């Protein structure tokens, strides 16, 4: 699915620069469900953003689905983001003036689907996350968990191969977190490759593999026995 070799990333801060990723090597196979863990500031989000083509590495190699991601034009990048990648953010990042249905339909708009198809598909995904009745509500009328489910529906709508989630449960209480995790596990069962950043051990344990970062390098990378989210509820 994806191969990363000797990936480096630094941020310029004033005159100096902050070396955040210091040579990351990571491979993820199709169908995996990986938790990226590490203390705050260890570079988890940075890594995930580079994988998601929201940001670019300074050096190193990143191959996504057989394609070398390097110096792509924004136009090309847009196509890959749209086709390969689904994003779930900690802060949901819904468009505030669009209702749930319209938010979910947006990636389909960029895929060039017809309006009717978009609405049907968006509705289908909203139904999957159990929000049929909330389709016409604006984000501000939804709870955090509902918003995150809209965001998941949106990430799924374009049928991406790789789903990236940056602390998807970070803003949610534990019950809601587990509902969301159950849902993400179900997606993984259906064959989606999932990479998620999390702080919480119990959330990480619901994945199939844990990658630990510290100061920009991977200090541990192990497969685990997945704990089903349903068992906690």
């Amino acid at each position, binding site marked *: 699915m994806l191969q990363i070799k000797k990936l480096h990333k630094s941020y310029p801060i004033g005159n100096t620069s902050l070396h955040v990723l210091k040579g990351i090597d990571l491979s993820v196979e199709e169908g995996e469900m990986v938790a990226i863990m590490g203390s705050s500031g260890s570079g988890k989000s940075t890594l995930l*953003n580079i994988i998601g083509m*929201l940001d670019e590495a300074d050096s190193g190699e990143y191959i996504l689905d057989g394609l070398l991601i390097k110096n792509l034009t*924004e136009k090309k990048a847009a196509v890959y983001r749209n086709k390969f990648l689904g994003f779930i953010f900690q802060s949901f990042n819904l468009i505030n*003036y669009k209702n749930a249905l319209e938010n979910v339909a*947006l990636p389909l708009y*960029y895929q060039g689907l017809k309006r009717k198809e978009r609405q049907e598909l968006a509705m289908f995904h909203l139904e999957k996350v159990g929000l049929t009745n909330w389709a016409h509500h604006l984000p501000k009328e939804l709870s955090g968990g509902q918003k995150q489910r809209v965001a998941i529906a949106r990430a799924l709508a*374009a049928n991406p191969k790789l789903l990236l989630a940056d602390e998807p449960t970070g803003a949610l209480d534990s019950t809601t977190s587990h509902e969301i995790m159950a849902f993400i596990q179900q997606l993984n069962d259906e064959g989606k490759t999932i990479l998620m950043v999390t702080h919480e051990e119990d959330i990480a344990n619901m994945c199939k593999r844990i990658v630990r970062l510290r100061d920009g390098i991977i200090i541990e990378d192990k497969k685990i026995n997945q704990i089903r989210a349903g068992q906690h509820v």
Partner: protein
Amino acid sequence: MFDLDLWREIFQSINKNRTRSLLSGFTVAFAILLFTILFGIANGLQNTFEQEFVDTASNSIFIMSGQTSIASEGLQAGRKIQFKNEDYDYIKEEFSDKVEFITSRVFKSVNASYKNEKNSYSLIAVHPDYQFVEKNIIKEGRYINQNDIENRTKVIVIGRLVEEDLFINESSIGKYINLNGIQYKVVGTFMDEGGDDEERIIYMPLTTAQHLYGNNDYIDQMNLTYSPDLNYEQALGFSNLLTRKLKSRFSVANDDQRGIRVFNMAEATQQVDQMTLGLTVIILVIGFGTLIAGIVGISNIMIFIVKERTKEIGIRKALGATPRSIVSIILIESILITAIAGYVGLLIGVGVLELIGSGLEVYFITNPGVNNSLVFGATITLVLAGALAGYLPAQKASQIKPIVALRND
């Protein structure tokens, strides 16, 4: 290609972000409104100026006589200079290549009566050319003609208001009016754009008046227009030469300002032209000032809008929006809003001018109005400015990494 979905996106964005849309719309509408009103007022001022001078041909020269103020060639000061028909003939022949129309004038005041209606009017006895010098417009019938001059016919041409005064609900043509005891046949009526006073005048053949009111060939004044081919310098040269020749003909000292006076409208016209030029400059300054203010305003708003939408741009990019789709969504929105707002401003401005326009004549503003293509030009300029001002930041925003845009709160 008409992309319905794109327009749906744009209308939703406009509709759901009303404050933002109103803000940018208001700036443009207000700029165009100001532009329209200021231009309208400036035009009104100009109209007033032009109207003051329309009723007399701008290439006119007036020749008047008086008493000499300086002794000359053995003659004492205080001598009265009297023009006669021979002087008219002299000018006509001497300057035949420069004179376009020429007429003598004799002024009288008469009491006119028709049936029971009576009134007193100015009477001017003239040559046929007077019609063109004074820009009289024939309303009905004919003007004084050469035959009248030769035969001293007792005919008159009366102003529109004279007819209104004396002839209640009937046409005056062919009727006889009594002027100071003599019956004259009305052969024509005329209009004049110079105002009511100019339409309360009675014209009579010059020779008729000379014969009946004194049996002499005296002339009070001569008016002529010079050939339109003369430029300003040539026109002044002509009137100067004319003045010198007449002065020597009557033995009037060259520096005598009263014995013979020649007034050239070209000088007055020149002043009006300068005034008009001044107004035009003021109009341009006002116009550009408003436009620049509008451009600065809409530019700032566009920059603000793009900034405000940066996060949305990040989200859209993360979902697969191409830079082009981002730029077009912002640009079309801004063009749409500014164009509509500009049109609204234009409508309001024109409406205001219509409403208050007629009440402004006290302030020397006549028919304030604007040239539509001018205001459309201004609107288009603002729309383009808005588009350009939106394009640069939108283009920039569409190129930044999504993560940077997403971090923007």
